[in-house]
């Protein structure tokens, strides 16, 4: 109560021009927030509505027209679960590999005395702007015998120069005395890195891990070109056939009598599919929120 009074007076103290400006600003921000939430709420509501009603009259709050059939059909479908399983495997392994490789490489690059720093830096930075392109990379993966294997998904994008730069910048911000103390004790590079440096870098490790995990979870291009077996497809490819190519997985609508009913059900399934597939990340992400500012600032120091 007390606080509220204080805040009110803070606003009241402002000159009239500022008040008007602030109110316009708050309205703009409010509109943006509504624009983000509105489609999400619409999809959640639509996913529960009987397909015929949804197509003919849109949303309704007549609960007799509500049904959970779309969710049942999506959750009963084996391919969705295969997709979830593969997405988890790929994302976890990719994140582990990528974070290890990136954090390791950032350490020598963060040391002032590292000989060859300029060489490695040039080698790495060039790849941020120039590459072989789609076909040469595809042929390489093919020649390495990695087509249709998990390695084609995990290895090519595993070392991220951008994340390495961010981690390096973060290491360089770690107080020097920590390193000097370690050297006096005769600690080797490995001991210093794992026992002293990494523990104080947990914010940046969390940030990079989250980026890599979300990036892998949400991507589909590599899986689309490199993986051909249905059993190896990650979630996004399964979603692609349902949401984009308009091809519900086998069995999802097969029992429907008419073509029209099948089409209506396929449409409803999309709403439920969107909710089911997005839920895991949307639930997890607020727990990572505190790391965002830290990580992004570290990256911003040297663009």
């Amino acid at each position, binding site marked *: 109560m007390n606080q509220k009074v204080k*805040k009110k007076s803070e606003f009241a103290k402002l000159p009239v021009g*500022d008040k008007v*400006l*602030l109110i316009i600003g*708050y309205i703009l*921000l409010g509109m*943006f*927030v509504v624009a*983000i*939430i509105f*489609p*999400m709420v*619409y*999809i959640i509501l639509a996913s529960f509505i009987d397909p015929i009603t949804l197509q003919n009259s849109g949303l309704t709050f007549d609960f007799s027209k509500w049904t959970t059939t779309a969710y049942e059909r999506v959750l009963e479908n084996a391919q969705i679960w295969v997709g979830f399983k593969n997405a988890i495997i790929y994302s976890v392994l990719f994140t582990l590999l990528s974070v*290890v490789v*990136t954090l*390791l490489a950032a*350490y*020598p690059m963060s040391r*002032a*005395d590292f000989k*060859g720093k300029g060489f*490695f830096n040039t080698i790495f930075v060039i*790849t941020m*702007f*120039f590459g*072989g*392109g*789609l*076909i*040469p*990379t*595809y*042929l*390489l993966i093919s020649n390495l015998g990695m087509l249709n294997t998990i390695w084609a998904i995990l290895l090519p994008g*595993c*070392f991220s120069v951008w994340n390495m730069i961010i981690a390096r910048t973060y290491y360089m911000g770690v107080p020097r005395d920590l390193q000097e103390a370690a050297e006096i004790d005769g600690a*080797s590079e*490995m001991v210093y890195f794992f026992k002293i440096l990494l523990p104080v870098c947990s914010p940046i490790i969390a940030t990079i891990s989250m980026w890599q995990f979300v990036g892998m*979870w949400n*991507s*589909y291009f590599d899986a689309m070109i490199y993986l051909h077996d249905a059993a190896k497809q990650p979630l996004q490819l399964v*979603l*692609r056939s349902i*949401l*984009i190519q308009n091809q519900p997985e086998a069995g999802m609508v097969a029992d429907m009598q008419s073509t029209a009913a099948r089409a209506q059900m396929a*449409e409803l399934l999309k*709403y439920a*599919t*969107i909710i089911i*597939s*997005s839920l895991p*990340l*949307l639930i997890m*992400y607020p727990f990572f929120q505190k790391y965002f*500012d830290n990580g*992004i*600032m570290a990256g*911003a120091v040297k*663009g």
Partner: protein
Amino acid sequence: MKKDAPSASKEVKGASRLHNTGVYMRQHWQLYLIFMMPAFLLTVIFRYLPMGGISMAFTEYNPIRGIFGSEWIGLENFKRFLSSPDFMQYLMNTLKLSVYGLLWGFPIPIILAFLLNRIMSKKTKQNIQLVLYMPNFISVIVLCGIVRILLSPTGMLNSLLGTNTNFMTMPSAFRTIYIASGIWQGAGWASIIYTAALSNASKELKEAAVIDGANIIQQIKAVEWPAIKDTVLIQFIMSVGNIMSIGFEKAYALQTDMNMSTSEIISTYVYKKGLLDGDYGFSTAVGLFNTIINIILLISMNQIVKKMNEGKGI
């Protein structure tokens, strides 16, 4: 370079730099073999080896005969692309999509950050941020799926407008759809970097400005804009540098047979020509053309900014 490896530099006083390096490397072998090796190998194999494959852009590539066995045709692939009637269309589609996307999309995160910075209650600010960042965690496929069902003839937008237009088949709607959905998904997330820079704006400076009776506009001019100016510049250069590398994934997922005249961009064309039609040499040539334009854009942008910003680029 001065305080490092004191024992090593004493031992080899006066010896050649090369020898010096050798001693350093032997002493610090872990840095090379354990820390650097994995990243270096991955880079060489997956980034540099494909660069060698670029030479196939100058051949009539035949998968059976390989790069060196295929017939060398010089710039024929480039000529074929540049003289085809589709060339201008795809190039303009790519440029328009990203330039318009930049013009609309770039200022909004900055505005959002200024607005967020003016929210007095910390709790409210956090809750709004939670909502603003949320769409970033939705995948490209799901985003395009959402766009497709909301814009379908029986979807949300049509039931709001009381019409039944099929927006996904309209070439004239593609860019608006692409850019608006991009802002919906990414503007909040992109504002983080500016919010962080703003929160670093000197508190004392701002308090002094308030005591001096500065109004909000004056505070923004004197305190807040200077605090984020560099970040804005860097972000702008980076965005311009990425104009030609506009993503494949989203454009491809929003394409329909009917909107191809605006939605076919160079990256989707490269994919279709190369992997779907098997025209490897030609596809590689188109990709290379794209990369080169991108590098030229980045370098010239950096030069311009350097001139405007008293010699500071990236």
